[in-house]
Structure formats: C-alpha cells, structure tokens
C-alpha cells in the first residue's frame, strides 16, 4: 500500500508541493514553540525550595511628621528597632500565628534583590577563591521557619538553629561551586571586600525567585534582634519585611480578621499596621507576566494547528472531488470504506513524513546553534526527541482530522453512483 500511496502522491506533486511546504514551515515553528513551552512547564514543575502556603506579609509603616500623632523617636525613650521587636512580639500572641520572621529585602516573588560577591578562604594555604555574585538574604532564624527553607533532607530547624552572627546558610548550588570537594558545612567564607570570615552553618536546597525563574545561588546571613534594636533607622525601615506563617486551620479569613483585630494593638509609638497580604496573592501578581507569555505561545500553537487543519481540509476537499471516479472504481472493485479512508489519511501522513524529516534536520541545526533557549537547560538529544515527538503527534492529529472531513463524502458514496463520474 505504501508504494501505491507514494505513486499517488507523485502524480499530484504540484498540489502536494503546497501542502508539503506548509507542513515543513509549520513543523519547524511548532517545534520551536513546543520546545519553549516544554522548558516553561519543566521550570514551573520543579521545586521552589520553600513553602509559601499560609504565609503572609505584614505591611508596617511609620507615621511621618505630617501626622498629628507623630512624635520624634527620642521622645519615646526607645529605639525604632526596639519598637519593631515589640510589635512583632505582639503579633506572635495572635491566635493562629505560628511564627513571625523579620528580614531585609529577602523575599521571593519580589524585584528587590541584594547581591554580594563571596570568597572562599582556604585556611591551610591561605588562598582565596573568588566565586562571584550570590544573592544575599538577611533574616532572623524565624524567617527561615516562616518560609520553611530546608536542608536537602527536609530539615528546617537544623538550618534555623545554625544561623547566627558568624554562621551562614548557603544553598547547595552555591556550595557546589564554592566547595567542589563536597561537605561545605563548617568551612570558611568571606565577603569579597571584607576580611571578616564566616562559617558555613548549613546547606539548604536551592531556591528560585519565581515559578518561571531558574535557581539562583543564595546565602542567608543572620539578622539578629540585637542588630535590629540598635541599628534600624527610619531610612531603612522600608526595606524591612515582617512575614508570618499562620496555622493551616486558620482559613481564608485570617488576613481580614488579623487586620481588624490587630490594628489597635500593633499601633505602637510611630509604627502602625497598614495591611497584611497573603503570599499567594503576591505570587499571582509576580508570575502574571510569565503566565501571559505562556498564553501567547499557546495561542501560537493553536494558530499554526488551525492553519494546518484548514490547509489539509482545503487540499483534500478538491482532491476527493477530483478523484470521486477513482474512489468509485475502488468501491466497485471491493474496497471497503475503511480502506479508502486509510488511503487518503495515509497520503496525508506520508506527505507529513516527507516534510517532517527535513524540518527535523533544520530544527536540529537551530538547536545546535543554540537559537533555542539554553539557559534553563542545555540542548540535549532527549529534549530534542521529546519535543519533536510532541510536534509530530500534534501534526498527525490535525492532519487526520483535516482529511477525515472531506473523506466522509467518499465513504458515503454508493458504488453505482460513483462510477457515473468515470
């Protein structure tokens, strides 16, 4: 049957050339989009390295001197940092609050990011190894508990307990570059422009900024309550984030109730509670752009597939009309309707095969030239075959449906009726 189909295709080569060219072009474009969507899906599904369910950001603000209730900090006899710690300790008493953390520009799903250049110090040889930029988090041990950052074994407390003035936590991807020989815990690190040496207190799972971002090597530096009490001033207050983890049983009304019931209590000296936001909302807002982009790509897939569908329907509509005689003859000679349909669909698929092979070669070259995204994952043969496979299946489905429509006319033909066309 295959030989016969090839012959039929060859005999109609002029009109087949069009559909062949279209399949070729669409196969390449479709593969490119499928590849992109595959990478996005893969990123989206890989672990974040922390847990934001039941986490809330508490927006605390300072009164300014335009407000009647404002008093200069010196009149209160406390520091701003001490006031903040008082407010935070009041938060801890609210029913359903499990743990409250304080951090500085250290939130995921946010554009405010700090980086530091880190060095590794080898104590025996006194060599230093420069290892580039790491994202810097500053937080209290409870901040680690709020986001449930964890060691690779999943232990959060082990990290929180080991974060202190001279002990930092680093992510395992940072550890792998800094300490290729393994086992980073207990070794020395320092900042590129600072001689202060710090121990690695623990290694945690790698983390990402957002669902569509790749892993960023990060370290967590300790933000002690002592430092907050003595060093915090009005200029830096805006960089401080207070986050809390609520008990999962508190439910959806937690934020509204908290805002209503705690507004009075958290109004302390110049600090007041402005708002409390669920982390899920922050995430939704952050990933909106990426979701939009993915939607656009899906629209592209849809557009290309519909085009293939229309092209195939159109071409085979005329073809079946031209060939009603031939089909009638086949029926008269004993072909079943299934045979006829499979000849037509077979024709379409063989053309696809002829188009798909050169398309795959072109795609392979595009991939090897790294015109596709290679930041998320390298261009591997597995990725190529998988995405080509998905593309092929999508095309096959569309072509079969496209031919199935016009072939209905043939299939419903009565032999006597059809021979009349001859």
């Amino acid at each position, binding site marked *: 049957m295959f030989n016969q189909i090839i012959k039929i295709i060859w005999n109609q080569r*002029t*009109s087949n050339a*069009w*559909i062949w*060219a*279209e399949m070729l*072009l*669409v196969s390449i*474009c479709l593969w490119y989009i499928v590849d992109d969507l595959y990478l996005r899906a893969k990123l989206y599904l890989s672990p974040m390295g922390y847990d934001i369910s039941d986490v809330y950001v508490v*927006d605390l*603000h300072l*009164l*300014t001197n*335009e*407000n009647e209730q404002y008093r200069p900090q010196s009149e209160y006899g406390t520091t701003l940092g001490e006031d903040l710690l008082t407010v935070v300790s009041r938060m801890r008493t609210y029913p359903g609050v499990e743990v409250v953390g304080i951090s500085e520009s250290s939130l995921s799903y946010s*554009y*405010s990011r700090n980086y530091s250049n880190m060095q590794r110090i080898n104590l025996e040889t006194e060599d230093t190894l420069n290892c580039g930029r790491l994202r810097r988090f500053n937080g209290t041990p409870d901040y680690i508990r709020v986001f449930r950052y964890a060691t690779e074994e999943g232990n959060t407390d082990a990290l929180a307990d080991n974060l202190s003035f001279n002990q930092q936590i680093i992510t395992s991807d940072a550890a792998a570059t800094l300490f290729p020989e393994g086992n980073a815990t207990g070794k020395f690190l320092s900042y590129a422009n600072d001689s202060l040496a710090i121990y690695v207190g623990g290694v945690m799972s790698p983390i990402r900024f957002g669902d569509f971002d790749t892993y960023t090597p990060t370290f967590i530096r300790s933000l002690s309550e002592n430092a907050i009490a003595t060093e915090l001033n009005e*200029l830096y207050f*805006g960089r401080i984030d207070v986050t809390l983890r609520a008990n999962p049983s508190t439910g959806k009304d937690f934020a509204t109730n908290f805002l209503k019931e705690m507004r009075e209590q958290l109004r302390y000296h110049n600090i007041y509670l*402005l*708002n409390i*936001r669920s982390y899920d909302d922050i995430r939704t*807002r952050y990933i*909106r*752009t990426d979701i*939009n982009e993915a*939607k*656009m790509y899906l629209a592209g897939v849809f*557009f*290309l597939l*519909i*085009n293939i569908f*229309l*092209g195939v*329907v*159109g*071409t085979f*509509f*005329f*073809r079946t009309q*031209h060939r009603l005689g031939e089909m009638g003859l086949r029926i008269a000679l004993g072909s079943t309707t299934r045979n006829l349909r499979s000849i037509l669909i077979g024709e379409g698929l063989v053309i696809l095969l002829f188009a798909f092979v050169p398309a795959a070669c072109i795609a392979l070259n595009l991939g090897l030239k790294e015109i596709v995204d290679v930041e998320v994952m390298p261009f591997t043969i597995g990725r190529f075959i998988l995405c080509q496979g998905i593309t092929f299946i999508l095309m096959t489905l569309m072509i079969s449906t496209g031919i199935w429509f016009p072939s209905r006319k043939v299939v419903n033909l009565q032999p006597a009726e059809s021979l009349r066309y001859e």
Partner: protein
Amino acid sequence: MYKTYFKQAWQLMKQNRFYSAIYIAGTGLAIALVMVIAIVYHIKTADIAPEVNRSRLLLNESGTAKKKDGSRTINYSLSYQTLKECYYSLKSPELVAASVSVGQVKRLLGDIYLSIPGSKDKYTADISGTDADYWQVFSFSFLEGKPYNTEEFESGYHKAVLTEGMARKLFGSVSEISGKSFLINDIEYVVGAIVKDISPAMTITYADLWIPFTSMPVFTRTEEYENIVGPIRAYILAHKPSDFERIRKEIEEKRKQYNTQLIDYEFTLESRPPLSQKQEAIRQIDFSSSSDEIILRYSLIICVFLLVPAINLSGLMASRMQERIPEIGIRKAFGAGWTTLINQILTENLFLTLLGGLCGLVVSYGIVLVLSNTLLMSKYSEITSAVSLSPGMLMNFMVFFYAFMICVVLNLLSSLIPVWNVSRKNIVEAIHDK
C-alpha cells in the same frame, strides 16, 4: 470592468460555498493574528487622549548614578535635584513634565488607602505624583475644578486630582466635590479637580489619583549617592519630532555641566538614553534584547503568521485554478491578454480576501478585548485593575489602513504563483482540459 469582476466573484463565491468558507476562514485567521499585533502597537504608540502628544514626546524614565572610579552603579530614575538641574532648565523643548509612576509609588509607599475623615471605609488607589506642567503636556478631560499650578506644586501643597471613578467611590458623587478633603494613608489632601477615567493601557498617565510629588517627602528625599537618582521620570515635549536629536544633545550638555558639581558620583544616562514612545514600546517587549533584535524577531513572527496562511491559500488557489483552466483557455482564445487575466483573478481574489479581512478584524477586536490585560499591560507592571479600551482605540483610520494593507499583501503572496502558472498555460492545452 471591476464591477463585473466583483459580480463574478460574488457568483463564484456563492457557487463554491465550501471553498469560499475555507478561504475566508484562512484569510480571517491570518489577518486576525497580525491585526492583534497591529492594534496593540497602535494603542501603545498612537496619539490617544490623554497621551495626545506621544509622537512629540521624549521619555526619560531612567537615570544612573555611577561612582567616578566605576566601582558602583545605581540604576533608578531621576531625583528632584537632577530634574531641576538638567531637565527643567532645557531650552529646546516646548515643555517638560515629570511624574512618579503608579508602580514606583507602590514600591515606595506600599499599598495606598484613601478615606474620608471620620469614615471607616478605606479604598485602595493607584496614585501617581506629578508636577504642574504634566497637566499641559498630557491632555486630560476635566469634569470639574483645576489641577495644582506651579506655585502649588513648588510649595508641596496637598491638592489632588481624582478620576471620576475614584471620586464616585470615595464621595459617592462626582459633582461639587472640589475643595473637599480626604485622607491618603492618614494624610489630608484637598480635591482640586475631577478628570475622566484613564485606561491602564495608557502606560504613562494611568492613575486613579494624582498629587504634586513635592507633597510627599518620600519622593523628593534621596540623600544617598549625592542625590542624583530618585523615583522621578521626565517627559519632554518637543516642538516637533525632528527636534529629538537637538534635545538629546542639550540634555547631554546639561549632564556634563551637572557632573562638574558632583564629587564622588556622576550622573549618566547610559542604562537607557531618552527614548521616543515608539522606541519605548519596543523596549517594553523584552528588556534583555536590543531593539534591533526585537524588531527582527517580530518581523519574523509576522512573516510566519502571514506566510503559513499564504502557502495554505496558495494551495487552495492552485487546486481551484485547475478547475478554472478551461474557462481561462477560452478567454485567452478570444484574445484576453495575461495581464487582463491576472488582473481579473487578483481582483476576484481580493474580494474574498477583504471579506476574510473583515472577519479577521472583528475576530481581532474580540481577541484584544478579551485578552486586553494580557496584551496591553506593560511588563512587570504593578497595576492590578483591568485594562479598559475605548471604541476610538480600536476603530480608527490607522487600524483599518493596517488591516487593508495586510489583506493586499496576503492576497499577493497567496495568489501570485498559482495565477502566474495558469495564465502562462498554452491555449490549446487549456481548452483541451475541458
């Protein structure tokens, strides 16, 4: 003659319903997609109220403070000091406006709540801080009252301009409320004027509420890095677009002069020089690529969007022409030249293409309306309200013109080769096909 062609085309269309339907659907689909891109581009770059002067506007949205030894760079926007030194003193432009965008205000102040003194109800609002010339550079339609003037701006007077929607939410009505007071995060402001609502598709001017940015110290207080960078963006209105180069040069001179007064840091525009609205719209698509790359990428996308359906339609046309060869042979036998034939077929085809184009345009309106948030929100925007569109943004001469041009291009792309093939066919052979 064209009337006959169209009549014939209409008859042919009725006779071959299936072919016509497929052809119109194919054209419509192609045109819908390309038109979505064209409409989005139009809304983002055309002169649409209140941004009526976009074609004459130079956007300076970014500024950099750089330590003179190169060890530190801070990319942000302009500080009030830099604005006064380098921008307000410019001679070549017509006007210079400045504002702190809604997103920037959110980043600095967090979420903002409005309320009426004594009332417990609070409403979130998107606030923008502006200067007084802002109301001249952009053309808002005022329902009531007057915005703050230069003296009020310079003294940091607590006066605000509200949109109709915000005023209705806050006061329950939109008339006779200028002069009334309300609270922005517990700070008292007076209503100066009410303007019509602004769509978030207007990326420069969108807000619910405008205040002089001098009225909140957080916008003007920038002690770090020698007070070079801050949250303020400058919008420079040129007398005509060809003045842009002259203005850029003058900014450059001012910048150099300004840098002589600075000690450790210098002010540069290297991260993003002043751009026109068109350049800015292209930059917004992808921050990590150069504008040439983006233009190349989008040209490729449009090419594919047109080429795939064009091949499709060519295939259809080729099959269709096979059926019409006898007719063409007879026409030729009676003396029709190939230009006449090509002309006729192209016109007939254009008729179908235009029908498809019309369908496509309607579909593209549907897509833009349904996906307005996805398509028109600028990247990483902090704005959460839905993008509203006015009929004028969608139905206007430019959009129709784009649609028509795309139809013509698609028609030529899809029918030239099949028609060429057919019209060259030998007369005898053509009639023989009968």
